[in-house]
């Protein structure tokens, strides 16, 4: 099972890590570059968040090995996502509640 990883297997992993590393660096510079373009507030927020999500997914999928994780972990994370969405209701609720003075 979770025993000795064969040398080739690990070698393959390591190659993925390096590729991901390069991609993360590239995306970091892309996001900084985009912010220099002074796009509209809305566009820049959307773009920056999309890039952040891609970077985050790369880290989670490859460094944290989520891509080949056990079902149970997916379950726990799905639950968290559900509650996270609940949490994001909070600003929505707040905005609808608030009546500015």
């Amino acid at each position, binding site marked *: 099972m979770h025993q000795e990883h064969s040398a080739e297997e690990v070698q393959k992993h390591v190659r993925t890590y390096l590729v991901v590393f390069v991609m993360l660096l590239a995306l970091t510079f892309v996001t900084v570059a985009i912010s220099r373009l002074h796009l509209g507030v809305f566009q820049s927020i959307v773009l920056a968040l999309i890039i952040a999500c891609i970077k985050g997914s790369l880290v989670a999928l490859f460094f944290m090995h989520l891509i080949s994780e056990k079902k149970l972990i997916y379950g726990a994370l799905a639950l968290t996502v559900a509650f996270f969405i*609940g949490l994001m209701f909070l600003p929505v609720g707040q905005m*609808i509640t*608030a009546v500015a003075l």
Partner: protein
Amino acid sequence: MSSGHHEHSEQQEHHAEPGFWQKYVFSTDHKVIGLQYGFTALCFLFFGFLLMLLMRWQLAFPGQALPVIGKFFSDSSMPGGIMLPEFYNSLGAMHGTIMVFLGVVPLAVGAFGNYVMPLQIGAVDMAFPKINMASYWAFFVGGVVMLVSFFVPGGAANSGWTSYPPLAELATTGQTLWLLGMVFLITSSLLGSVNFIVTIIQLRVKGLSFMRLPFFVWAQFVTAFLLLLAFPPLEAAGVLQLMDRLAGSSFFLPSGLVVSGQLMHNSGGGTPILWQHLFWFLAHPEVYVLILPALGIVAEIIANNTRKPLWGYKSMVYSLIFLGFMSFIVWAHHMFMTGMGTVINAFFQTTTMIISVPSVIVLSCLFLSLWGGSIRFNTPMLFALAFLPMFGIGGLTGLPLGLTTTDLHLHDTYYVIGHFHYVVAPGTIFALFAGIYYWFPKATGRKMNEVLGKLHFIGSFIFINGVFMPMFIQGLAGVSRRLFDGGASYYHAGPVLKLNVMMSVSAWCLALAQLPFIINFFYSMFAGEKVTSDNPWQSTTLEWATPTPPPHGNFTFTPEVVRGPYEYSVPGESSDFLPQYQPVKG
């Protein structure tokens, strides 16, 4: 697998007897930790109750000096024995905080969860014994910080257990300690909940599938998820309020505040409502944390003492899970009167009505489980039975609060106080008493005295209703909560004002009614009737398969589960109970 070898060598390494400190103070044994939690939590419950007894004097006889005890208080709280409003508010806030975070949760989850749950799943200990110990000590430190806050200048936190800003941010040092204390308590709960979930998922013995788990374990499982995912937002909120108090930021303070005629020079831009959202995002799930373990205890005891399986076990489990889910999206029903639009209001009203349905199902199942039983009325069963209608009253009175139309009149009145005390006091506290009487023989090898137990039950039952029933009347009359004079300033409170005296007297009698319990508890610990069997209640679940009291490591054999949790009175069997671990015949 190479691990077998290491396990062996580890056993060889440590067989020296642990010393006193390691055995009783810094123990990693889940049972010792459970007892530590239990004892500390009982003390806090008692302390929280004492605070309330003081408050009830002021409510019954506003402005009159408290006889005898009054003179022992400092001039900054009760000069001449007469309570100051600031002190009343401190007592109220600390009563709420202590009861919820230092009393009921540690007792229901920390003590019962820790002691019973691993036994019921046949585990040798929790998955992370050291983390388990750490979570007890984090709780302990949190408790000490809370207690210390009574002695700082300005007294303890006095802005309600809800700590709404801006009031809480204008408050004295006590509030800072309250926040620090909460950070410790939250940390403790987070560590604990990770431990519980991992233990339940990983350490179930062979054959114990999820649908064979005792209902109590299910309750702890769902509770742990609530703690795990709902507490962090309060931790965030606590950090933000600490920043506001200590670093001068304005997360919860809008611009242009004028306090006592003085313009505040804060940067502004924050909003007090944000705190309420973050607080209730935790605190609504938290109230289910208060009730679910209680339901679990009651379910165990009812199955055992009706000598029949729980009726509708599966639908109870599914209701529980559904309840857990829903509890995350009802929080704003505590905020109906903050000025909400139709849509958001309709949303939260609807979810609140929906969440009442699984509660109705669980309660119905428990009621129906009684049908066809052979009911034994021992002390644990009496408390468990009384729980049902008491939780029923508390739950039912949640309905008018959940509908905005009626909450419009009832919000922040004593009706709310009545509602939730029915669920937590004659509800949860009764269930916890039931649990203490029920599992006491396992933990100590002695039974608690039945006569004292029944005395405790009758006294508690009568007087606790005497305290809380009149609250609905006061609430309907429109009497606000947290009133220092119990409503004497208001015309509309006039007709129901005299109830205050009756409620206070009931509260003091309720305190007296606890004496048989306290005596019983200590007496039975040392001199109670010894149990002759490891399974004195003739129960089916695994905790009764251990020696009494269970040694470190719990089981003397490796249990294997072959059937569901409540196989009582199975037709064609000679014994009226079939333990989960008893091998199938033939």
